[in-house]
C-alpha cells in the first residue's frame, strides 16, 4: 500500500506514467509498426520544443499565474535573432545566437513581470495583452519575411544527430538537441526542489499573502519568474527554428493552449503551489504520443484538438471530483469524532 502510494507520486505522476504505458502497449498491439525505435525517436524529436515551453509554463503555474505570451516571446526572440544575424552578415556561433535570443526573451519577460508584479494584475489578461503587443511589434518592426537560409552554425546543428541506428524498418535518428533539453529538465527540477528560489515559487503559489508575511520577496520573485519564462521560451524559439530549418514568423503562436493543457495534465495545479517536472514531461509525452498514434490508427489528425480537450476534461475533472470528495470526507471524520466524544460523555 505504501509502495503503491509512493509510486502514485505527489501529483499523480505514477498514474500518468501508467496511462502513457498503457497507451503505448495498446498502440503497439493495434499497429505493430508503432513499436519501433523510429517512432520513439521521432516522438522525442517532436517533444523537444513543447517540453521547453512546458517547463516555462510549469514555473508560472506553480506561482499561481498563467502565461499565454510565451509563444509570441519565443518566435520574437528566435526570429529577430536570425534576422539580426542575417542582416548584419555575421555568425556569432551557437553560444552567441542563444545568448542574444535569451537576452531578448528575458527582456520581454521582464515587461510581463514588471506589469504583473508592480500592479498585481490578473496574469492571464496581462499576458494576453502583451502577446498581441509582442506579435504585432515583431511584424511591424522586425519583419515578416520567411528565411530559408539560416546562419551556418544553426544550419549545421539542424543535421547533427546523437545516434544513428540502422534497424530493419529503416534508419532511426536521435537528434542531438535531446541532450540539452534533458539537462534543462534536470536543472529546472533541481531549482524547484533544492533552491530557496524554487521553494519560494511553491510558497507564493500556495498562498501569496502567507509567502509575503513569511518574508519572501514576492514582487522580485515574480519578476524573475517571468524573465525566466521569457528566457526558456527564447531557447525553445531558437531550437524550433533550428529543427524546422527555416525562420517563419507565423510559427508557434496559436499553440499556447496545447502546452498549457499538457502541463495541467501533468499534474500541476492551476491555482499554484503544485506541480513537478516529471509530471510535466510525462504530460507533454502523452500528448505527443496521442498525436502520433492517432495517425497510425487511421484517425484523421483533425481529431487531435478534440482528443486533447477530452483528455483535459477527464484529467482535471477527476482531480476536481477527488478534491470535492476529500473535503467532504474530512468533514465527516470530524463529525464522527465529535459524535464519538459525545457518546463517551453520555456513557460516563
Amino acid at each position, binding site marked *: 500500500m505504501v509502495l503503491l502510494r509512493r509510486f502514485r507520486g505527489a501529483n499523480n505522476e505514477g498514474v500518468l506514467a501508467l496511462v502513457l504505458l498503457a497507451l503505448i502497449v495498446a498502440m503497439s498491439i493495434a499497429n505493430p509498426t508503432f513499436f519501433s525505435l523510429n517512432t520513439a525517436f521521432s516522438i522525442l524529436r517532436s517533444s523537444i520544443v513543447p517540453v521547453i515551453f512546458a517547463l516555462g509554463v510549469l514555473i508560472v503555474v506553480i506561482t499561481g499565474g498563467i502565461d499565454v505570451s510565451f509563444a509570441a516571446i519565443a518566435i520574437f526572440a528566435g526570429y529577430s535573432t536570425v534576422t539580426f544575424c542575417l542582416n548584419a552578415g555575421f555568425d556569432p556561433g551557437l553560444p552567441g545566437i542563444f545568448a542574444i535570443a535569451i537576452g531578448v526573451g528575458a527582456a520581454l519577460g521582464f515587461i510581463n513581470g514588471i506589469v504583473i508584479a508592480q*500592479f498585481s*494584475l490578473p496574469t492571464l489578461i496581462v499576458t494576453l495583452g502583451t502577446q*498581441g503587443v509582442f506579435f504585432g511589434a515583431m511584424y511591424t518592426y522586425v519583419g515578416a519575411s520567411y528565411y530559408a537560409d539560416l546562419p551556418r552554425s544553426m544550419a549545421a546543428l539542424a543535421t547533427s544527430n546523437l545516434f544513428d541506428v540502422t534497424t530493419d524498418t529503416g534508419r532511426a535518428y536521435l537528434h542531438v538537441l535531446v541532450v540539452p533539453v534533458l539537462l534543462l529538465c534536470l536543472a529546472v527540477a533541481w531549482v524547484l526542489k533544492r533552491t530557496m528560489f524554487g521553494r519560494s515559487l511553491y510558497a507564493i503559489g500556495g498562498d501569496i499573502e502567507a509567502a509575503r508575511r513569511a518574508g519572501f520577496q514576492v514582487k522580485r520573485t515574480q519578476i524573475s519568474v517571468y524573465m525566466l519564462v521569457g528566457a526558456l521560451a527564447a531557447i525553445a524559439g531558437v531550437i524550433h527554428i533550428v529543427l524546422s530549418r527555416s525562420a517563419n514568423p507565423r510559427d508557434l503562436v496559436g499553440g499556447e493552449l496545447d502546452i498549457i493543457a499538457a502541463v495541467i495534465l501533468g499534474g500541476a495545479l492551476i*491555482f499554484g503551489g503544485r506541480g513537478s517536472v516529471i509530471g510535466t514531461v510525462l504530460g507533454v509525452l502523452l500528448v505527443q504520443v496521442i498525436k502520433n498514434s492517432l495517425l497510425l490508427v487511421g484517425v484523421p489528425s*483533425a481529431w487531435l484538438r478534440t482528443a486533447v480537450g477530452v483528455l483535459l476534461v477527464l484529467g*482535471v475533472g477527476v482531480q476536481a471530483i477527488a478534491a*470535492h470528495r476529500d473535503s467532504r470526507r474530512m468533514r465527516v471524520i470530524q463529525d464522527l469524532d465529535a459524535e464519538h466524544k459525545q457518546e463517551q460523555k453520555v456513557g460516563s
Partner: protein
Amino acid sequence: MSRKLTTRDETSLPNSGPLGQFNDQVASWTRRLVRPAGVHRGAGRMVVALLLAIALFTVLNPRVFLSPINLQNIAVAAPEIGIIAIAMMLVMLTGGIDLSLVAIANFSAITISTLHTAIAANDPDLANNLGIVIVLAGIAVGMLGGAFNGFLVSVVGITPILATLATMQIYNGMAIVWTGGSTLYGAPAVLGAIGQAAVANIPVLFVIFIITAVLVAVLVNRTALGRMIQLEGANPIAARYSAIPRRMVLMKTYTVGGLIAGLAGVLFLARNPTASADYGSSYVLLVIVIAVLGGTNPTGGFASVFGVVLATLTLQVVSSGFTAIRLSSYEYAIAQGVILIAVMIFDAVSSRRTKRPKKTNRAPRAGASTPQTALTRT
C-alpha cells in the same frame, strides 16, 4: 468593493410611513436616472474614450473616416464582436471566464450552414421557408455548448478557465472534423436579407446588437438571477452563506452565455454566408479586451453592459481609423494590447489611491484577500 454594496443597502432600507415611502420612491427614481453616468466607471470612461477616438481619426483623415461607407462598416462589423463580448461579460460577472465562446459561435454557424445545405439539396424552397427553424437550431446548439460548459464548471467543479479551455479545443476540433477544415458556403435567405437590411440607415445587425445588450442589461440589473450572478461574483463566500444556489446560478450563466454566442454565430452568417472552424480566431483575445475595457472586473461582481457596448464601438472605431490612416493590422494588435494593459494599470493605480488614506492599509486588504484565495482552492 464592499463599500459600494453597503451604501446601496443603506439607501434601500424602507422608511416607515407613507411620506417616507414616497421619499424612497423618489430617491430610487433619481438614483436610476443618475446611476448610468455616475456609478459605472467603465461606461463613463468609455464615453470619453469613444469621443476621443472619433475626434482623433476625424482630424487625421476626415475624408475616409467620416465617409458613410466607413461608418456603415463600423456598424456592421461591431455587432458580432460586441455580442460575444456581452456573453463574456456575463460569465466574467460570476468571476469566471469563457474561452470557448468563439468556438461555440462558429459551431452554431456551421450547424446552420450544414442544415441549410442539406435541406436545400432536396428542396430549395423548403430550406428557405424553414430558415427561422434552422436558425433556431443553430442557437440551440450554442445553448447546448454553453450548458455543457455550465455542467463542467458547476457540477463537476472544474475551474472555468480550464473547463472552457478544454471545451474550446473540443468544439473547435469537432468543427474542424465536421467541415474537414474547409469553408462552408450557403445560409438561409432570411439571414442574407437581415444582413443587408437597414432601418433608417442603421443596419439591422446593429439593431439586433442593441436589443441583445438591452435584454442582457435587464437580466443583470432587474431580475433575481442577475442579482444572484452579481453577488456570486462579488463575494462567493457571502453568496454561499446567503443560500444562493451556486450550481443553478453558474449553470444558467454559462447556458445563457452559450445562447448569446450562438446568436453571434447567426450574425457571422448574416454578414457573410460562409462558415468555417477557424473564423474569428483573434476574437478570443479581442472579446476579453472589450469586456475589461467596458469596466468588467475580471475577478467578478461588477460589470456594465452599456460600458461593453461603448468599448466595442471604441475598438471598432480605432480599428477602422487605423485602416483610414494606413496602419497595418499588426499595429492594431499592438494598440489593442497597449490599451488593455494601460486601462488595467490605470484602474489598479486609481483604486489603490482611493484606499490609501487609511494608514492601516495593509491589514484590511490582507484580510480581504485571504478568504478569496482560500475559496478558490475549495
